[in-house]
């Protein structure tokens, strides 16, 4: 059994501070810098983006799923970073060449992730702009039509 030493947990404390600071900083920054528009939606009570009143069986835009899937993909890549980080010190101890090799390898891995990220951005997966809004509106119309028991109108289908 090793002796308990508090200073060994210093990095964790640092991690806490950075995480807290990042979150707090973001909220603060948006409060200070961001412009504010008081719309009806925004003044609603916050319910994870859903209408607080009405049917619970409401459909999300497909965009949410897309983001979720992309998140999973990039998230899971991290598990390759962890074992690398664990053994890096030992490998690096074997000399400069080995250290560089192992380092470059991980950089290539990260670069590949970056390529994937750029691809996703360029393909418009994160595009919440005009086009996406139009699509969302068309979907909402189609939904409304269906709730009224009608066939979806043709222009909604085309959209």
């Amino acid at each position, binding site marked *: 059994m090793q002796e308990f030493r508090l200073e060994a947990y210093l990095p964790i404390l640092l991690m806490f501070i950075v995480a807290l600071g990042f979150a707090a900083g973001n909220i603060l920054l948006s409060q200070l810098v961001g412009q504010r528009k008081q719309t009806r939606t925004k003044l609603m009570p916050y319910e994870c983006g859903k209408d607080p009143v009405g049917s619970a069986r409401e*459909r999300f835009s*497909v965009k949410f*799923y897309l983001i979720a*899937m*992309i998140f*999973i*993909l990039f*998230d*899971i*890549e991290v*598990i*390759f970073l962890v*074992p690398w980080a664990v053994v890096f010190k030992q490998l690096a101890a074997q000399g400069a060449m080995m250290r560089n090799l192992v380092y470059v390898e991980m950089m290539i891995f990260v670069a590949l992730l970056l390529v994937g990220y750029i691809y996703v951005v360029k393909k418009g997966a994160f595009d919440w702009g005009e086009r996406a809004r139009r699509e969302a509106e068309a979907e909402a119309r189609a*939904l409304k039509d*269906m709730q009224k028991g009608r066939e*979806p109108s043709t222009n909604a*289908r085309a959209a």
Partner: protein
Amino acid sequence: MTELAINFPFALQGAPAPQVQGIDLSWYLALSAVLFTIGVVGVIIKRNVISMFMCIELMLNAVNLTFVAFASYFRDVTGQLFVFIVMTVAAAEAAVGLGIIIAIFRNRESLDVDDANILKL
């Protein structure tokens, strides 16, 4: 507890039963076999694509359990490395699978996930 001890064929003759974290290795393997079987049966009998997909995930995770149990017992990394790869692959499959399912729903112009059982897989 002793009455429940099953003599698995892979327990060594005469030797004490191999243990992981104080529990017989056999139990881990039995659990993962059961989970895997549930997954297989689920894929076969379910008619809903999402459920089938979840059953497949169950199978993969049953395999992961086997790997981890062995790796822990052997004090070997290979099994754990395999688990990493399986997890990544499962995530990629999840993304692709959901993408395929969404594509189908769009073409069917149906919002209800249960409509996928028209396919009768």
